């Protein structure tokens, strides 16, 4: 069943390949327009470049083109492909599941609709479609029920939904109804799948969908600012053994150099509400 193309049966409902393909194009346009409106509304581009100009004045050295290219590659391989930005390993793993699942789901949907719209037997891409949906479901529900910061740190109940949940809820609804429709094939489930897809891609302006575009840009900028000496005014990196004799450490000079002060707060889950 998971190797059967779910879109092949849509002809029975009177939905032609052209209609499916037009729907995909419409969704892509909705995302493009939504992201542009989002950027214009929040003026993120303005603040992004203003911050860079301000920090440039503090830079101690000029970065070469080779260094910038290297940082761009590092940003892609680290922050983008492995979600290294996340401090919490559980959130990082859940995000990786959601991200790769979503990419697989969207990519295989496009391939199935444009290349195999009426062919039920497309095992490779159909399998990827189902796998992608399953990955988003596992990572997404894990995040939704226990890792969401408003549930974990604020102590809110999971059903206390706000505007910030628009993206995750519409994403989960899309893949859940999509998978259920593929398994049971009812018209009602297909209708719910389409509605949630429209909400997901049509609500970019109101949801946090656009984070997948501006987060890599912010990560790249951060790398550059750390390398050019401005460091966003942050202190330099110190090693404990090197600084224990400095005057600001004088009050604690009798503490053994290898002593650790407990697990510190970072090792605790942030849920002491």
């Amino acid at each position, binding site marked *: 069943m998971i190797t059967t193309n779910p879109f092949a049966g849509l002809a029975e409902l009177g939905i032609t390949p052209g209609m499916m393909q037009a729907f995909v194009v419409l969704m892509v346009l909705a995302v493009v327009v939504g992201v542009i409106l989002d950027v214009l509304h929040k003026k993120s581009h303005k603040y992004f470049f203003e911050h860079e100009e301000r920090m440039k004045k503090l830079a101690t050295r000029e970065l070469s083109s080779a260094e910038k290219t290297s940082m761009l590659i590092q940003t892609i391989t680290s922050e983008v492909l492995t979600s290294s930005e996340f401090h919490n390993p559980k959130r990082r793993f859940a995000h990786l599941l959601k991200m790769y699942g979503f990419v697989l789901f969207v990519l295989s949907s496009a391939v199935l609709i444009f290349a195999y719209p009426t062919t039920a037997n497309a095992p490779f891409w159909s399998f990827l479609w189902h796998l992608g949906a399953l990955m988003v479901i596992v990572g997404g529900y894990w995040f939704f029920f226990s890792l969401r910061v408003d549930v974990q740190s604020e102590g809110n109940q999971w059903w206390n939904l706000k505007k*910030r949940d628009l993206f995750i809820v519409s994403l989960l609804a899309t893949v859940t109804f999509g998978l259920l429709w593929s398994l049971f094939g009812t018209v009602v489930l297909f209708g719910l799948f389409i509605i949630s897809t429209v909400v997901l891609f049509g609500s970019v302006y109101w949801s946090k969908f656009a984070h997948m575009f501006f987060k890599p840009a912010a990560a790249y900028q951060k790398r550059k600012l750390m390398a050019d000496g401005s460091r966003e005014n942050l202190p330099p990196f110190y090693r404990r053994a090197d600084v224990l004799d400095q005057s600001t450490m004088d009050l604690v000079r009798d503490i053994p150099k290898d002593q650790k002060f407990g697990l510190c707060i970072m090792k605790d889950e942030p849920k002491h509400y």
Partner: protein
Amino acid sequence: MPTFVYMTRCDGCGYCVDICPSDIMHIDDTWRRAYNLEPDMCWECYSCVKACPMHAIDVRGYADFCPLGHAVRVHRDEEEGIIAWRIKFRSGRIKDLVAPITTKPWGKFIPDLKQVAPPTEEQRKSQLLFNEPKYIRLDDGDLYTLESQGLKMRQGVYY
């Protein structure tokens, strides 16, 4: 100088929400990023600034007394067990400070006061409080002084 969050840096981890003693760091209803709910009530303790693993929280200097690029930034390095500060003055002068992290895990190292020996009559009459800092503590029945600890007063360091 209340704190504020660079939302593009914040990853919504919730450490600032957890640590804020005023309970004014919260998660935004639209973007699921932290923000300072009530800057007027911020007592500038820097707990959130230090706790943030993304360096996404900064302190807003009021323009009337700290313009011209003043900055106070901090990096809390758990691996090395140290906390480093960079103070940038209005004149552009930079002062770097480092100190060990002494924070203990939540709920640990809470003294079991029932097991602590009661203070002597002399200690009761003293002006010093129980659990005073090390150099003036009373747990050996006497005052710790700079001399008894082999320390010297030096400029810039006060006990």
